[in-house]
């Protein structure tokens, strides 16, 4: 390498000499002007910078070519100014001696000049009043992931991302500034409150038709998984009311604007990014195998059955225990090993772009393929995106965008969070043989199961702007997005109880959006005015059809005839939707000398689900900013680069519910006089005052840049109230209707956020080290329940059949779990409290006659009736994380860059349900499920008489199986399994080497780099379960979920 670069340098010197020789006569001839050549490179990455504008005074005299090189003719003594978007301008004075310039352009440190989008308008940060955080696409490169959301974890203060499903192509949860919902689906998942994504102007709402943990049809591919991270120029997080006010009809949960790359070089640039990565599974839990397991079961039965004779009878009646030499049972199968695998994957991205201010274009092609770490799962992405900007004059501008993407996914046995069959199978006894028991799951059956899921997304946008008079600009943005999903599955008869079954599903989602706006900008001296009026229409539709053919002729013929029509179903699913939103409004912004900024906006929104008597909702917002670094008193504060205080208040809505909640459901009844009748469903009474969910936000923030921008701090405090959340309210039984969907629940999130960035070493130091960190603290409080209740308990059984009620209490965190309070384990039967009136010991359940004894858990008898039942459950814990944040460190030295990203989630209570189920597997020693080496746990061990045993044990006696069904000592709903779910995680580490430009250029390559990335490196946590991140929003560890893979990538970025 050194040899090469020396050669290179000599070569260049030689070339320069020749060049100098060539131009010297010219120099003599033209005294006035000299020729200046040079190269512009980026200071950080040493890459050449194409498209840099070179000007003298205000006159542009040239741009750099694709190699960053330029040649200009200037008069000696003039000053060349090099400007490039996102970079600080560089100035060089040209003297007669100047012939060759090497310009290094540093990224613009001036955070205040960053361009941000707020309320549909682009403006410099200095004049915006809302809370916006910009994440550059550079921070999202070099880590191959299927869903870009994973990379955003810990990047923005107050944005809580939990990657709680490792299933490729699915998505975790994202919440900006706390959870804004307390609505829980029947299967035990919190209604998601993901922010609105606006991808190149196309709004994508992830909350409608979400398929989080959903076991029905559909490909289960998140729309975000169809965005290639390589194509992202930047992402903007709009948090407060001022920033999101104009997205009012759906911006209540925050807005994330994704902008893809654009062309900015006259000479076309072709860049390739590719990586090869290996995914591997995190360590799995230990299980007992073979004879150890059999011994454990037999001992348990012998010791704890009601009599020795019963014990022998049970053992002999259980063939997999007694028939130990039968090869069918004589195994030691590691089921988990059977389902997890290490996979090799790849991703490729080609980006072609070019153009200048008047016309530019970009085409991006992406291929991503990831095989899941669970067998028979995987995700592939193919995308083709194009955009073009045409701006013949300053007055007219047209931007078009066309993206097509296809995701293909193998779901294995479940949709994202749930891997039902694998869960069932990996919970099997090791004594069974995989050869016979693959009928438990289609995952094990591998390729014999046909499982094909596709999601195709086509989105287009056209943005036209015209400025007939200076300052008055008309614009119209039209976008159309269509997503079709297909899913087909065939289960052959041998894995499905001899019933071949064919399932076919397709859905279609369209979103049409149009916004027309008039913008007027005028400056009167130091007074600047910006007025804006808009009208917005959006239409959304969704329809899914599914069909299930059962008992087709055989495993080879999958239809279309020969199936059992009686068992076969099909039709349009009842989640079809067709909604409209219309909004209009305007805003006025005024600033005085960029010192004082005030912004007033108002919008009205009508949605399909606004009740007729609700009409349009009114959403005002007020915000202001004070840049105090521009005040006179701050003039002498050299340490202050910028400083401002801003504040905002405003309202946003998000449509909820369906038209059935507003107008009731009408059904077709029997015929009357040969005419069909229509009657109203008595389930829900129509609610003509139905309102959309409303968010009222207050935000106050300080932004500071200190010590020559070595330290940048943004501190924000906010208070957000979510009102009108829908809740089922039971009606009095004298009413004909059972329930009303009422806008009755409210909650408040208030908190604090801090983002800071430190440049550790001074500028110009050979080693550049930047450290940034952020955290957000959120306190959520429930503020309103229907009927002025102060407490409401929602009993429900979640997908895993565990009865874990939720409790909503006014003045406390929005929801918490309702649990039995476990104080320990009764060391002996004599320790069990006795009812003084009746002389009976504490009883498990009223009237059961099952009394606690030594080895049983001590549950607090809250109401003192010596019966442990639902009345003794207490609300315990807060499953919503209180603190989330992240940290980032980037060290650059010469051509080497080391980046480390981390994130943390703190103060959160998690229910370790897998642990409960692990113990529950001991309830029935004759059932073939997986057993863990239980002696590793601090369990109660009996003494000789079985009524007294070890003192201060943590876990109750798991072996007493005859009583286990009645006592249920390892029930999920107890504080024994509640743990602190805090964790610190190293998300990724990237080590990158930039090749020397001179060296690569010889091969026609403009720039190239190589990198090694470790992803999902390590999680530090006290949590005893497998992964504190694989937890639902309700704080429940999902046993059998899809674990987050770890991966190692080797990649390259090459630019031609």
């Amino acid at each position, binding site marked *: 390498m050194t040899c090469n670069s020396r050669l290179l340098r000599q070569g260049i010197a030689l070339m320069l000499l020749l060049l100098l020789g060539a131009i010297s006569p010219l120099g003599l001839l033209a005294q006035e002007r000299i020729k200046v050549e040079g190269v512009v490179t980026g200071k950080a990455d040493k890459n050449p910078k194409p498209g840099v504008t070179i000007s003298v005074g205000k006159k542009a005299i040239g741009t750099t070519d694709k190699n960053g090189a330029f040649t200009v003719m200037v008069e000696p003594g003039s000053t060349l100014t090099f400007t490039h978007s996102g970079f600080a301008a560089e100035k060089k004075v040209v003297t007669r001696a100047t012939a060759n310039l090497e310009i290094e352009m540093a990224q613009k440190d001036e955070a205040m000049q960053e361009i941000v989008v707020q309320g549909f308008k682009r403006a410099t940060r200095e004049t915006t009043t809302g809370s916006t955080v910009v994440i550059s696409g550079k921070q999202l490169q070099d880590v191959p992931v299927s869903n870009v959301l994973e990379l955003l974890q810990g990047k923005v203060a107050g944005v809580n991302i939990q990657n709680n499903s490792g299933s490729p192509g699915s998505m975790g949860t994202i919440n900006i500034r706390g959870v804004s919902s307390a609505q829980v689906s029947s299967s035990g998942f919190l209604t998601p409150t993901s922010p609105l994504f606006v991808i190149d102007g196309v709004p994508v709402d992830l909350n409608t038709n979400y398929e989080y943990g959903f076991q029905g049809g559909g490909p289960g591919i998140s729309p975000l998984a169809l965005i290639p991270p390589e194509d992202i120029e930047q992402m903007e997080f709009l948090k407060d009311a001022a920033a999101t006010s104009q997205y009012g009809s759906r911006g209540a949960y925050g807005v994330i604007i994704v902008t893809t790359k654009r062309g900015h070089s006259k000479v076309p640039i072709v860049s390739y990014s590719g990586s090869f990565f290996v995914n591997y599974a995190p360590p799995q839990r230990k299980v007992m195998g073979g004879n150890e397991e059999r011994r454990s079961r037999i001992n348990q039965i012998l010791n704890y059955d009601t009599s020795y004779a019963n014990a022998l009878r049970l053992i002999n009646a259980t063939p997999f225990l007694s028939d130990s030499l039968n090869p069918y049972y004589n195994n030691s199968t590691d089921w988990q090993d059977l389902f997890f695998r290490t996979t090799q994957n790849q991703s490729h991205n080609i980006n072609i772009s070019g153009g200048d201010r008047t016309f530019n274009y970009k085409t991006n092609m992406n291929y991503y393929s990831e095989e899941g770490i669970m067998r028979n799962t995987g995700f592939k992405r193919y995308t083709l995106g194009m955009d073009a900007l045409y701006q013949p004059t300053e007055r007219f501008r047209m931007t078009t965008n066309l993206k097509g993407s296809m995701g293909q996914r193998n779901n294995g046995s479940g949709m994202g969070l749930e891997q039902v069959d694998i869960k069932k199978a990996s919970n099997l006894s090791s004594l069974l043989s995989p050869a016979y028991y693959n009928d438990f799951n289609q995952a094990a059956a591998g390729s014999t199961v046909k499982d094909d899921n596709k999601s195709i997304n086509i989105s287009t946008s056209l943005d036209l702007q015209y400025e007939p008079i200076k300052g008055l600009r008309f614009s119209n943005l039209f976008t159309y997005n269509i997503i079709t999903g297909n899913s087909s599955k065939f289960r052959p008869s041998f894995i499905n109880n001899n019933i071949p079954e064919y399932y076919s599903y397709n859905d279609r989602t369209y979103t049409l959006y149009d916004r027309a706006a008039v913008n007027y900008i005028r400056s009167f001296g130091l007074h600047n005015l910006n007025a804006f009026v808009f009208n917005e229409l959006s239409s959304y539709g969704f329809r899914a059809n599914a069909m299930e053919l059962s008992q087709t002729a055989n495993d080879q013929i999958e239809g279309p005839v020969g199936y059992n029509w009686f068992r076969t179903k099909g039709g349009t699913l009842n989640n079809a939707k067709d909604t409209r939103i219309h909004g209009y409004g305007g805003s006025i912004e005024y600033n005085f000398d960029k010192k004082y900024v005030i912004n007033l906006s108002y919008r009205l929104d009508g949605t399909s689900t606004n009740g007729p008597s609700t009409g349009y909702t009114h959403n005002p917002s007020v915000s202001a900013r004070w840049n105090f670094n521009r005040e006179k008193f701050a003039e002498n504060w050299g340490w202050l680069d910028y400083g401002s205080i801003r504040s905002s208040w405003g309202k946003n809505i998000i449509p909820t519910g369906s038209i059935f909640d507003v107008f009731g459901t009408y059904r077709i009844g029997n015929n009357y006089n040969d005419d069909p009748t229509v009657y109203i469903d008595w389930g829900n009474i129509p609610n003509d005052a139905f309102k959309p969910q409303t968010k009222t936000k207050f935000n106050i923030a300080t932004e500071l840049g200190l010590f020559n921008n070595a330290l940048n701090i943004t501190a924000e405090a906010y208070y957000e109230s979510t009102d009108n959340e829908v809740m089922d309210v039971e009606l009095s039984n004298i009413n004909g209707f059972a329930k009303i969907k009422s806008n009755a629940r409210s909650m408040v999130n208030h908190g604090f956020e801090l983002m800071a960035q430190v440049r550790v070493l001074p500028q110009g130091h050979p080693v550049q080290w930047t450290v940034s960190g952020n955290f957000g603290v959120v306190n959520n409080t429930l503020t309103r329940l229907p009927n002025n209740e102060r*407490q409401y308990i929602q009993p429900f059984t979640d997908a895993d059949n565990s009865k874990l009620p939720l409790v909503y209490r006014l003045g406390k965190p929005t929801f918490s779990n309702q649990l039995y309070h476990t104080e320990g384990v009764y060391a002996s039967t004599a320790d069990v409290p006795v009812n003084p009136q009746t*002389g*009976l010991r504490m009883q498990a359940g*009223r009237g059961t006659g099952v009394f606690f004894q030594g080895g049983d858990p001590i549950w607090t008898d809250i109401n003192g009736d010596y019966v442990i039942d*639902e*009345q003794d459950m*207490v609300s315990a814990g807060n499953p919503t994380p209180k603190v989330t944040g992240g940290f980032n460190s980037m060290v650059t030295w010469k051509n080497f860059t080391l980046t480390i990203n981390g994130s943390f989630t703190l103060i959160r209570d998690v229910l370790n349900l897998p642990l409960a189920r692990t113990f529950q597997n001991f309830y029935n020693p004759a059932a073939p499920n997986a057993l863990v080496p239980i002696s590793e746990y601090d369990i109660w061990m009996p003494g000789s008489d079985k009524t007294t045993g070890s003192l201060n044990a943590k876990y109750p006696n798991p072996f007493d199986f005859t009583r286990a069904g009645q006592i249920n000592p390892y029930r999920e709903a107890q504080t024994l399994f509640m743990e602190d779910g805090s964790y610190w995680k190293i998300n990724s580490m990237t080590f990158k080497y930039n090749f020397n430009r001179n060296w690569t250029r010889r091969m026609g390559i403009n720039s190239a780099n190589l990198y090694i990335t470790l992803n999902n490196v390590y999680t530090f946590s006290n949590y005893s379960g497998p992964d504190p991140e694989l937890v639902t929003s309700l704080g429940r560890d999902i046993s059998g979920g899809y674990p987050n893979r770890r991966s190692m990538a080797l990649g390259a970025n090459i630019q031609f």
Partner: protein
Amino acid sequence: MNHKQRRLLTQVLATGVLLSLLGACTRLLPEYREALSLEAGFSQTTFEPVVGRTTMFSNVFVNPNNSSTYPIDFTIVNARRFSGEAAPELSDIFPVKVWKQAYTGNETSVAEIEAKRVTEYHNLFEVRKHSGDFVLWSSATSNLLRCQADSGYIFDVEMSNGGGRRYFRNMRLMPFRERPYEPSNLNAITGQSVANGIYPSTMIGVVGDSTNQVLSAADVDVFIRKSEEGKPGGNTISFMFLDKYFRPIDPAKFADTDWNNLLHGFNMTKTATRVTYDVAFPVPAVPLATRFTTADGRRATTSFAWSRLGYGGLRQEAEIGLNFAIYEPGNWEIVFAFKKDNPKFSND
């Protein structure tokens, strides 16, 4: 005030305003209070226990869907007679027997059972502090309380927790007078016997000695009575059998009886006329199913059995038994009187 100071003041003021704004935010939030639901209440408001036995009224407080937050405190307030006058008998305290350790049915002496309970002083009629269960202790007698046909007592219950308090007014306690044993032949209101005796619970294969007819339960009277000859304060139960002339039958004739496990009694003495056990009252001691009780644990179960050779040399098994409960300490006699015909013990 110079220019600098004024500027400083402005800055301090601005900071103050900001901080107070944030402070005001949290003040908008509702304060957490424990819930006290209007839906919660008592499913039973009139209590008619029988005095002389410890009676629990469990699960009478209903808290639908846990809409009120536990722990809840309950107290009986303003207990008064129906006429409105004060009822000191409900506010005074009396010695009652309270279990401290669990009765198991495996105790081997009266002393061991007695060691499991102690005497404490309580109101005769109490509400359990947190559960809203009511209890009338066995120390209550018709001498202390006004029993039916009197209209009894009226009381209010205060329910409170951190969220406030509620009152349930005019709940009623209308005790019945003692019925010291069950099954009872005593009138609930007058306490006078309304039948000669009670009938045995089981009669299997008992044949009349003179008639050779099968005897039914109605052919036997059972008398449960306090023995007059016993020492006062005794704790015994004796079993006697009388023939149709009211002459004692030797208990030894019930030869197949498991005398040692007949009931949870100790120190059995068996004479030609009776079998006596020392017991701890009440019998059964607690409502727990043991080998001495019925399946629900509410009655002691006894069975006296014998067998003889019938016609053709077939063994005929016969059994007579009684499920009973006795609540009052004393020397109790349980007398089986074969009023129609004597049972046949001899072989055919």
